């Protein structure tokens, strides 16, 4: 960490002298914004401020390699301290911005709950989202956990050793990744999914069913249409408070659990945007250039509700994407906007999720599809579903099939098509049958 005026301003009444761009959220998108700005020659001072006591780090491994102890915390760090110092970016850790005063010209002061103040000439919100909480009886018991940030992962890791039974609530990506990791670590894991299938709307029915069968065949206990009614503690006889001991389902089933991990989605952190009077609707509403409704503040990544970036999307169609790819690409668009350029956000979103030995890669957005083609190589353990709208490929879910993923992603990026009539034949690479629409 470099020394700088902001960090040395210990007196809450002292207004630091550095202004420039203030990026709130030392997240994937916040980091990318700073990096892209420097690559574009932005020469104003940048403050990259986060509310966690960690240097900016990558989240994806928290539910996988980090949880399993395969990588240490140092390997999650985005950039070396030398990089930040050398690029005139001040990192500020552990400051939670409670309120922002902003003028019509885009300048202002952000007030941290600690009393510190951060003046800015331009503001960027890369504040992400927070875990949605499950509020039922016993949800405040010790051992009822979430997994969104590094401290969550550390809390989970610190308890894993003493636990034998884990109940994961939510059969989405986070729940299934963590469940797979915990199972690999020798825990007895049960996944409760409230809905009739896994992974909500992020994948199609065939992929959801594939994952259900694949996980069950690997010994993971997955229960669909299952709702937790309450968490109960061990009968401690009135001594010290006890942690969670069991999950009681609505159908009366009781599952032992020394850890309950809840992964039921996220809520965008729009509090600051609301306080600033920016348009907010399932995220901070931004235009194609990542600009919020005041025309000066940029908002990027998970927190932004933006025009659908997929070329050819219906006019006015909006979307909020929670992914590394979006965090990076959206931040690049914002970096252009902040340097006086205009670069519309356009691209093919992609996603990945690694669960046990299942490597899921998703290219494009499948919503609105009217046809699917299954491309399954059972012998080699590869499974892909291609999604079509009016004969045009729009997306694919690929499991352990990176070549299919890359071919579909590249075809979508070039506006090409992969004829549905030929896509099922696993003996032919998709790239070979790709056509210029």
């Amino acid at each position: 960490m470099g020394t700088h005026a902001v960090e040395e301003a210990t007196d809450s009444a002292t207004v630091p002298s550095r202004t420039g761009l203030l990026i709130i959220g030392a997240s994937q998108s916040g980091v990318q914004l700073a990096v892209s700005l420097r690559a574009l020659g932005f020469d104003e001072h940048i403050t990259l401020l986060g509310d966690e006591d960690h240097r900016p780090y990558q989240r994806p491994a928290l539910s996988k390699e980090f949880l399993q102890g395969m990588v240490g915390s140092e390997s999650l760090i985005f950039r070396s301290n030398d990089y930040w110092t050398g690029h005139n970016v001040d990192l500020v850790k552990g400051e939670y911005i409670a309120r922002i005063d902003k003028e019509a010209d885009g300048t202002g002061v952000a007030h941290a709950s600690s009393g510190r103040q951060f003046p800015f000439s331009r503001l960027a919100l890369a504040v992400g989202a927070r875990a949605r909480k499950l509020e039922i009886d016993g949800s405040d018991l010790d051992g009822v956990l979430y997994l969104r940030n590094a401290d969550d992962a550390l809390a989970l890791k610190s308890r894993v050793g003493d636990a034998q039974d884990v109940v994961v609530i939510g059969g989405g990506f986070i729940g299934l990744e963590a469940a797979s990791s915990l199972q690999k670590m020798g825990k007895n894991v049960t996944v409760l999914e409230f809905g009739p299938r896994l992974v909500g709307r992020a994948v199609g029915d065939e992929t959801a069913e594939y994952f259900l069968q694949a996980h069950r065949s690997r010994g993971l206990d997955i229960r669909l249409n299952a709702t937790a009614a309450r968490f109960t503690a061990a009968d401690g006889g009135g001594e010290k408070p006890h942690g969670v001991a069991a999950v009681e389902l609505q159908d009366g089933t009781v599952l032992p659990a020394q850890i309950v991990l809840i992964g039921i989605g996220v809520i965008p952190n729009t509090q600051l945007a609301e306080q600033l009077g920016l348009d907010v609707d399932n995220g901070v509403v931004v235009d194609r250039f990542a600009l919020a409704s005041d025309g000066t503040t940029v908002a990027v990544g998970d927190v932004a509700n933006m025009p659908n970036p997929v070329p050819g999307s219906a006019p006015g169609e909006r979307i909020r994407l929670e992914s590394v790819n979006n965090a990076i690409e959206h931040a690049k668009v914002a970096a252009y906007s902040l340097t006086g350029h205009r670069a519309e956000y356009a691209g093919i979103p992609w996603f990945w999720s690694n669960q046990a030995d299942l490597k899921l890669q998703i290219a494009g957005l499948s919503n609105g599809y009217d046809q699917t083609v299954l491309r399954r190589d059972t012998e080699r353990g590869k499974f892909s579903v291609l999604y079509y709208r009016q004969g045009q490929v729009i997306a694919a879910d690929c499991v352990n099939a990176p070549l299919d993923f890359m071919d579909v992603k590249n075809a979508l990026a070039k506006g090409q098509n992969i004829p549905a009539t030929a896509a099922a034949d696993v003996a032919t690479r998709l790239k070979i049958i790709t056509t210029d629409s």
Partner: protein
Amino acid sequence: MPTVHFTDAEGSVRDVQGNVGDSVMETAVRNGVPGIVAECGGSLSCATCHVFVREDCVSQLPPMEDMEDEMLYGTAVDREDTSRLSCQLRLTDELELFVTTPETQV
């Protein structure tokens, strides 16, 4: 200390010292070597950390697994015989590696 020499598509060179056990990709990204994108952070999902390894260095590296081999077919600049994904290359003691980054990764 292991050292990686990154040459970009225009020919300019960055020499970066790394830590044993880190990947070539991590070493590049942490120090801001521009030719490596690595969107997925090393989970072998994106093929944006593609490098061409100098021929006389290839034998110092571990063999390629199937997943890396498949991903390399999807790189932005077409693969060559010496192509690797740098997230799969771990630095070992005394390693001195010469790689060239492609013109683009996306």
